[in-house]
């Protein structure tokens, strides 16, 4: 009985350790909110994001003079509801963040495992390739890629994958280097495990904490890159609302209707800040060194 109780309590403490980290808590809430709005945008948005109302252009947010509770955050220069567009914009941001990060991570991790584990010629080829790839300025590279690939949601994700896999590859390769020198890898070889099995079963589980941190940071980066691309009009088609696009439009009316630009900007800032803090907090919570020292 006491044992069961103790295990329950240990599990509870583990959860508590995660939540007691303010960064994790804040970032987690932001991430959940983003996922929620991205999924439910069609149901919770008060208006069709593309519905124009020429009679009500540049309506201010509801708390300002001339504001209207029908358009909570006001309307843009074409009379479209800013709040609804922001909700829909989160779909683009989340799609790019999730898909882009997943595949960038996948490519990066696989190459990093190969390079870090086999070293020698394999590492040389992969690492030099990464070096060359990284030497292109990332924003420039993604703009060029978009110009070549053409606009569209999947192409944005593709551009982000192609630009950002190197980030994963570099960091994880270093970690794999460390792990493969540890004795349990030698022990696994002495137990006659094959290379593939050692990589998958012995090395990979040990990079998961680092990977988790990288993934959250990368999601923030993906959101920024998408915003930049849609700001310059190289992201999704004009019919799909995206935050960067809204900023680009709002920029023209910044003196008359600041809300068109400021709200999507705040969304980007909050999302990226939240994801970065989440990554930072996870690093603190998951760092095995702190764990060994018994930090709660």
């Amino acid at each position, binding site marked *: 009985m006491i044992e069961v109780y103790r295990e329950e309590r240990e599990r509870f403490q583990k959860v508590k350790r995660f939540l007691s980290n303010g960064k994790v808590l804040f970032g987690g809430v932001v991430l959940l909110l983003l996922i929620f709005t991205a999924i439910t945008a069609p149901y919770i948005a008060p208006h069709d994001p593309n519905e124009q109302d020429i009679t009500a252009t540049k309506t201010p947010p509801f708390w300002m003079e001339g504001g209207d509770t029908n358009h909570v955050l006001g309307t843009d220069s074409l009379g479209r509801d800013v709040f609804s567009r922001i909700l829909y914009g989160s779909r683009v941001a989340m799609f790019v963040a999730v898909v882009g990060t997943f595949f960038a991570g996948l490519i990066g991790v696989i190459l990093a495992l190969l390079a870090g584990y086999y*070293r*020698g010629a394999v590492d040389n080829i992969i690492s030099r390739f990464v070096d060359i790839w990284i030497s292109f300025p990332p924003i420039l590279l993604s703009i060029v890629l978009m110009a070549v690939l053409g606009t569209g949601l999947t192409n944005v994700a593709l551009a982000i994958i192609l630009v950002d896999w190197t980030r994963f590859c570099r960091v994880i390769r270093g970690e794999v280097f460390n792990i493969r020198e*540890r*004795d*349990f890898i*030698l*022990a*696994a*070889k*002495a*137990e*006659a*495990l*094959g290379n593939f099995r050692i990589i998958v*079963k*012995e090395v990979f*589980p*040990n990079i*998961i904490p680092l990977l988790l941190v990288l993934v959250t940071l990368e999601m923030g980066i993906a959101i920024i890159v998408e915003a930049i691309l849609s700001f310059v009009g190289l992201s999704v088609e004009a019919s799909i609302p995206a935050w960067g696009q809204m900023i680009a439009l709002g920029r023209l009316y910044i003196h008359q209707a600041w809300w068109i630009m400021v709200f999507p900007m705040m969304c980007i800032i909050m999302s990226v800040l939240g994801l970065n803090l989440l990554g930072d907090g996870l690093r603190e919570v998951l760092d*095995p060194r702190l*764990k*060994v020292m018994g930090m709660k």
Partner: protein
Amino acid sequence: MSEPLLCIRDLKVSFRLARGILNAVGGVSLDIEKGQILGLVGESGGGKSMVGLSVLRLVPEGGEIVSGRIVFEGTNLLEISEDEMRSIRGSDISMILQDPLSSLNPAFRIGSQIVDVLRLHKGYEKKEAELIAIELLHNMGIPDPKKSLQKFPHQLSGGMRQRVVIAIAFSCNPKLIIADEPTTALDVTIQAQILRLLNKLSDEYRTSVLFITHDLGIVANLCDRVAVIYAGEIVETAPTRELFKNPMHPYTKALFRSIPRHDRRQEQFYSIEGMMGTPIDWPDRCKFYPRCSEKIGACGHTDFVEVRACAPGHHVRCLKYE
């Protein structure tokens, strides 16, 4: 006398470095009989670990077994294919490493680590393997083995972890275990427990052990035979009693003198003068020559010092006994 279980002949391992060729192991010959515990003693960097790794053909990258034979149960391990070698690793010959914290994978519960090895080598079902794992841990003297299976390595103490490592090493009933300083990372009381355990298991399972250490005290308690290695060469081998009673090689004697004694007042701890250095492009003469306090005239000129028997089972590589 029957054929020894493991018979190493003239093993040479070298590393190609920018500065030259490093002869980590330079012509080592050893025999281990069935059920015997052989101590391989020497200072750090002397090539003892490399001998152990060579037996499993796990010499680190950059190193290469240049020549020699490692005959295990009649097969030369250096001639068989990698696949055949893998069928020997872990099942016929297994290894215990120095640091029990890093030789267990921190990401998995110890239960699954033991079960994995059992399933891989013996083809047990999961349930079956779990029962055997519990039995094993029990034999290792781990309290409450069933619960211990659910623990992660960092939740166990150093001694318990090393017991788990030993359990994994013994899990497939190997004929030979290579123990590379298995107690160095543990404190003295735990050391004694682990050594007693190893001794017991070696007796029970008739397992031979190649025990690599720098601690002569351990050797005295545990090993049947001792081989002293210096700069990649065996300088003296003898049954443990004989070696302790009658050490002959100047290096062995110096090692004994280096053990701090509490029963004698010492102004200063004895240490062998100089450093071993790195054996890159060394002349072929006696490797201990530069640090030897008993060298004779011929030592500086004679290229190759032969190993000679000076008592039954007692061999020494020194010109003094020519």
